[in-house]
């Protein structure tokens, strides 16, 4: 029975390609997750889901969006699965069960959402996230597979976001799916003793996506807001699925607060504006409020024993900035203290670099330079543009102009980001 043919649901003006894609974006994660639970394989699930999208793009524009688009997509994908299994003459036991399921459903013409999906759907999406971010996959594959399966992005959108050819993005997904099959990665949640480590891997993938949008490491674009928004959205999805982990809410807080500054990070000619010089009136107050709410939730969970992690600490630092109405109101003493805790938890020369800035603001440039000198020799920072940039900032404030200019020039030379180069070069010209 063709449910979408009933008169009252036809809505021709809405049924453009973009309208179909909008429904797809809303349903993609649940669809792929539900199919993966049935097939046991994310790759097959993703392919069946894509088949359903193609069918929707063919049929909805002329027949209208069905009353239950999620159920339609699921049924269509399952049918494709059955066809596939028949063609292969290896009627998979699970797909056989699906086929019987579909026959029953077609008899009863059930228009309600498929309850066999709903019962499991939260866990299924979480399984999907863990599988897409599985440590067996390369980082590039994790990012691509997450955006594709959980975010519902097409290969060309992923390619655009990461400034790679579409074939490259598609290849990353193909490779990811193959690895999952070859290594027989099960579609399941991590065991409790692995959960923390695996969650950290998921957050790492989401943060990489966010940062790719927030501070493009190469090329002309300073920010790609769509990518930040997608990372934010996925972070919120995750926080809803694991509501009791402080570090996950800390992560959400961090990205909401960082995203709140996107509009202020770019000047009228597209040039980057650093934190201290930003027009704080352009900060996004809605995202700040959401970020502060998430931070509070994370701190409450931490107070109840959920372990504190590096994202929560960084969110605390971002919260200090968000609370400062003017740059000079910034509570640098608290920020320097939070960096002190962060370095204990997560010894990392880049954290030390940031701590040097904070200590320089809290206790004066000489104290900051002392922190910097202690870490400057670390091989990780070799060739890192922010090392000379931080030194240049501290030297500028210490009134050591000649040395400062030299360091600004060095920073401008090292950075791969054109916007940063512009800022560093301008600072070099400004020191007296």
């Amino acid at each position: 029975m063709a449910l979408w043919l009933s008169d009252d649901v036809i809505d021709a003006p809405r049924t453009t390609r973009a309208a179909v894609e909008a429904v797809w974006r809303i349903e993609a994660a649940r669809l792929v997750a539900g199919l993966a639970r049935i097939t046991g394989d994310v790759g097959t699930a993703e392919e069946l889901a894509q088949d359903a999208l193609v069918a929707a793009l063919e049929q909805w524009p002329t027949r209208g969006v069905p009353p239950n688009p999620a159920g339609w997509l699921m049924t269509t994908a399952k049918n494709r699965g059955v066809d596939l299994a028949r063609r292969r003459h290896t009627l998979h036991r699970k797909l056989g069960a699906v086929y019987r399921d579909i026959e029953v459903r077609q008899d009863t013409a059930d228009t309600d959402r498929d309850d066999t999906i709903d019962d499991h759907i939260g866990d299924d999406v979480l399984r999907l996230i863990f599988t897409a971010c599985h440590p067996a996959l390369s980082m590039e594959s994790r990012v691509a597979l997450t955006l594709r399966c959980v975010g519902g992005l097409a290969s060309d959108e992923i390619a655009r976001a990461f400034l790679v050819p579409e074939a490259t993005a598609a290849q990353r997904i193909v490779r990811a799916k193959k690895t999952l099959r070859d290594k027989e990665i099960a579609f399941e949640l991590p065991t409790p003793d692995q959960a923390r480590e695996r969650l950290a891997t998921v957050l790492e993938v989401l943060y990489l996506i966010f940062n790719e949008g927030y501070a493009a490491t190469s090329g002309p674009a300073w920010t790609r807001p769509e990518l930040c928004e997608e990372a934010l959205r996925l972070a919120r999805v995750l926080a809803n699925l694991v509501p009791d982990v402080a570090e996950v809410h800390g992560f959400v807080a961090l990205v909401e607060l960082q995203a709140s500054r996107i509009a202020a990070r770019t000047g009228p000619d597209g040039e980057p504006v650093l934190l201290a010089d930003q027009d704080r009136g352009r900060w996004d107050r809605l995202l700040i409020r959401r970020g502060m709410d998430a931070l509070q939730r994370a701190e409450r969970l931490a107070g109840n024993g959920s372990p504190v992690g590096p994202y929560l600490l960084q969110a605390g630092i971002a919260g200090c900035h968000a609370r400062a109405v003017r740059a000079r109101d910034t509570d640098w003493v608290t920020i320097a203290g939070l960096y002190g805790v962060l370095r204990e938890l997560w010894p990392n020369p880049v954290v030390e670099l940031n701590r040097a800035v904070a200590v320089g603001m809290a206790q004066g440039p000489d104290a900051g330079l002392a922190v910097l000198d202690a870490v400057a020799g670390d091989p990780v920072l070799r060739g890192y543009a922010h090392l000379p940039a931080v030194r240049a900032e501290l030297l500028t404030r210490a009134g050591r102009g000649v040395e400062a200019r030299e360091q600004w020039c060095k920073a401008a030379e090292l950075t791969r980001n054109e916007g940063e180069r512009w800022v560093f070069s301008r600072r070099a010209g400004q020191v007296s």
Partner: protein
Amino acid sequence: MRYFSLLTATNTPDGPPPGALMAAIAALGEDANSAGVLLDTAGLAPSAKGARIELSGGTIGVIDGPFTEAKELISYAIYQVASKEEAVEWATRFMDLHLRHWPGWEGNTVVLKVFGPEDFGQQN
């Protein structure tokens, strides 16, 4: 990108909204929230509790509610989505709940784009 949607009732049957509608609205809100797209939403009290500030003929006047128009603004939502169509889809799902659970109710939702960085050609 961000869209602001504003729900207006043009014909409200007598009596309070059905419980089934309220439950369905809560479920849809939860759905949009777990999808990470619902940034903010709230219901709006009747205009009797509000006021209107008007500038006309060179003077500013404050008029307390209720306003005589039959239309009442009911609620607003702010979505973060990838396209206008996606915002329209969420808003349509919201309207569909009224269609299914409150016979006789009529109204409209206006979906407006909130200006964002993408509207000023700053990136790329």
